[in-house]
């Protein structure tokens, strides 16, 4: 290794900051470090490409406003809103318990009705 890795790390850090902030004068930055130009050129160009490719994205205004209202409690925080932001596993478990409970109740009610119909026949 011709140069200390930390020197190269510092150079890449400074160059990246300059590219992200769209500052001119990258050459000046490179000359401040004891790193050969050929070693950094490929990496500097890569940093440029990353800066072009990775750009921020904003949520829709509608979503931002709706979420703010929900968080601030200005909108009715009903059961649906509460359930909506639970982890999917909890939602699925909740749905299974609800359906299971409903089926059990229905089954028991059906059994009671069937028993009631059978009683006169026994007499």
């Amino acid at each position: 290794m011709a140069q200390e890795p930390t020197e190269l790390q510092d150079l890449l850090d400074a160059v990246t900051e300059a590219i992200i902030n769209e500052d001119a004068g990258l050459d000046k930055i490179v000359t401040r470090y004891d790193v050969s130009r050929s070693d950094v050129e490929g990496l500097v160009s890569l940093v440029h490409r990353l800066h072009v490719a990775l750009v921020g994205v904003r949520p829709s205004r509608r979503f931002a406003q709706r979420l703010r209202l929900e968080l601030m409690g200005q909108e009715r925080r009903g059961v649906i809103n509460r359930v909506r932001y639970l982890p999917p596993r909890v939602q699925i478990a909740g749905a299974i318990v609800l359906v299971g409970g409903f089926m059990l109740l229905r089954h028991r009610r059906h059994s009671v009705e069937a028993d009631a119909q059978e009683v006169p026949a026994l007499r």
Partner: protein
Amino acid sequence: MINLRKRLIRRPKNLKQLADIELVDLAKTGDKDAFGELYERYLDKIYSYVYYRTGNHHDAEDLTARVFFRAMAHIDGYTERGVPFQAWLYRIAHNLVANWHRDRGRRKVIPLDEFIAASLKSDAPDKQAEDQEELKALRDAIRRLPEERQQLLLLKFVEHLSNAEIGAIMDRTEGAVKSLYHRTLIALRDELQNADSSQSSLESKKG
């Protein structure tokens, strides 16, 4: 108790002038506007981060909402102690995204297609195609990086965070972040070169 804290912490008129930690203190007393200000400050950043990690707006909205609901529910338990509020929020986002990937068994990748398309809108058509190809190669190479390296690139290039801020989120020192960034760039450059050379050898075989 909350009333007492409310009386002790006098609420200034302009919340925008307050530091995060002051807003957190107010939010702990039940001041919803203070939490609202924190929400305004970090919504775009958290949304952007989650969007890159999930790759679609629907899940990004869902997970972003969960991040803020979770933050609001647990803000009482938050104490700064070396982890700024921003880092705490990103950690919540990171954990929720990790759960999301685990639940779906999806590969942890950064989808970049829409961003690449958006960044090329103003270019001439022939240059667009060339750039698109180049950026596709870059996207594919990023996808092959380990998750922590993808996360680092996002925090640096999308979120524009400093090494100290990234370190607080990733639980690393600034020096370690710098070193990881250096290794990430080298790995990415090697990936791109390997992809280039395998593409060239394929073309020469065809020719």
